[in-house]
């Protein structure tokens, strides 16, 4: 049997050595855990708090963020946004190679579906939408964003086709109610000059009028 002092010395030495080794192991585990830590799993989807960008060999990239996806071309120009816009509306925006918005499909005022097409000067030229009364409407606009053509169901519930001058005043108007269709053509002052179809008194026919609304000819 070893002398008592020698046994005690060996035991203390082992303790010191073991303590140093264990400390190193614990530190190693801590470092490993910090480098590789992941959030505890849950039953919900895995969530990232930062946008994720994927890039292909051509340099195009798509970024997934909390509001949707954006797609950029090889020159790093933003070309598409699908998601919620800066006003929180669901929206699809397409931009040309110059970065100009050319087409947008979104919910106007949070609920009315709208498609807009823009020319290269960012002028709204075509719009397809449901109005606030939920009536369908197509609008064609000129380079000055003046309404020139419309195809819609109006507030009265009538389907209508309207053609307008550069002053946005109605020039031709084709519509129908449950009795008869009718076509009205107006001059620059808004006076109807030719009427064809059903008249307000329930008759059907056609007439031609002067600028002062005098009937020049009528049939039958």
């Amino acid at each position, binding site marked *: 049997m070893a002398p008592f*002092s020698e046994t005690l010395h060996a*035991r203390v030495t082992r303790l010191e050595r073991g303590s140093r080794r264990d400390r190193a192991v614990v530190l190693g*585990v801590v470092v490993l855990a910090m*480098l*590789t830590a992941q959030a505890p799993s849950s039953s919900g989807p895995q969530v990232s708090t930062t946008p994720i960008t994927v890039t292909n060999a051509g340099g195009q990239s798509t970024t997934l963020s909390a509001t949707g996806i954006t797609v950029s071309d090889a020159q790093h120009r933003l070309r598409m946004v*699908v998601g919620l816009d800066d006003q929180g509306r669901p929206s699809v925006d397409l931009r040309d*190679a110059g970065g100009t918005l050319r087409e947008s499909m979104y919910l106007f005022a949070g609920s009315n579906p709208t498609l807009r097409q823009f020319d290269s000067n960012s002028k709204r030229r075509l719009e397809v939408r449901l109005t606030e009364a939920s009536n369908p409407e197509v609008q064609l606009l000129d380079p000055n964003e003046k309404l020139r053509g419309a195809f819609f169901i109006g507030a009265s519930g009538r389907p209508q*086709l309207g*053609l307008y001058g550069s002053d946005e005043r109605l020039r031709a108007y084709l519509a129908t109610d449950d009795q008869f269709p009718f*076509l009205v053509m107006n001059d620059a002052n808004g006076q109807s000059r030719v009427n064809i179809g059903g008249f307000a008194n329930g008759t059907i026919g056609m007439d031609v009028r002067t600028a002062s609304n005098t009937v020049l000819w009528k049939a039958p």
Partner: protein
Amino acid sequence: MNAPHAELDDPVLLARIERLERRARRDRVLALGALVVALATAQAPPPPASLAPSSLGVRGADGTSALLDGAGLTVRSAAGVAQLYAGLDTTGSPYVSEADANGHQRESLFLYDNGAPGLRQFDAAHVVRTDVYLASGADPTIHLSNAQGVAQASLFIGDKGLPEFDVRNTHGDAVGYLSADDQGAFLNMRDPSLNVRTYAGQYTDGTWGVDVRNATNTNLFKAP
């Protein structure tokens, strides 16, 4: 200061050393256990930005899946059919496409190469039936087409800047035509040879009226 032999004989000190030894064994077991757990649950650190992934996929419990790659997003049905794409097309233009359950494209929202916007709706045979776009990059145009893809009704602003509406025969010829300028409006109707047979509205001389013509453009009736 105590003599060394006095410490060695101290039962209190011996008890403390034994407790230290027990604690050291227990801590070693705990440390090794933690190491095993850390190794078993470790995930690779995220790659640096320069090594961003080239694609990212998500699969739902029902078999649907979404794939995000550099060009955009593709969503597939549980049957593996690509039904939605939003991204860049092969020419690099933005493009959104929706397909039916058979994978047939039925709707697309896109920009032409010149940047002009377009919306198309397709029938099951992939014929364009509704076409909404800016012609020449600017003029708003809507065509409604038959099953052969021939436009039969159109509403547009033409190259003269005038709003126009026409209905067309199956050859695509405008046979009913309503248009307007800043002075007035006119309607004409044509026969299969495209001769004007009925006219109403403002004439080029500024007068208003209606007329009916024969196939050689002779007035059969005119008023006033």
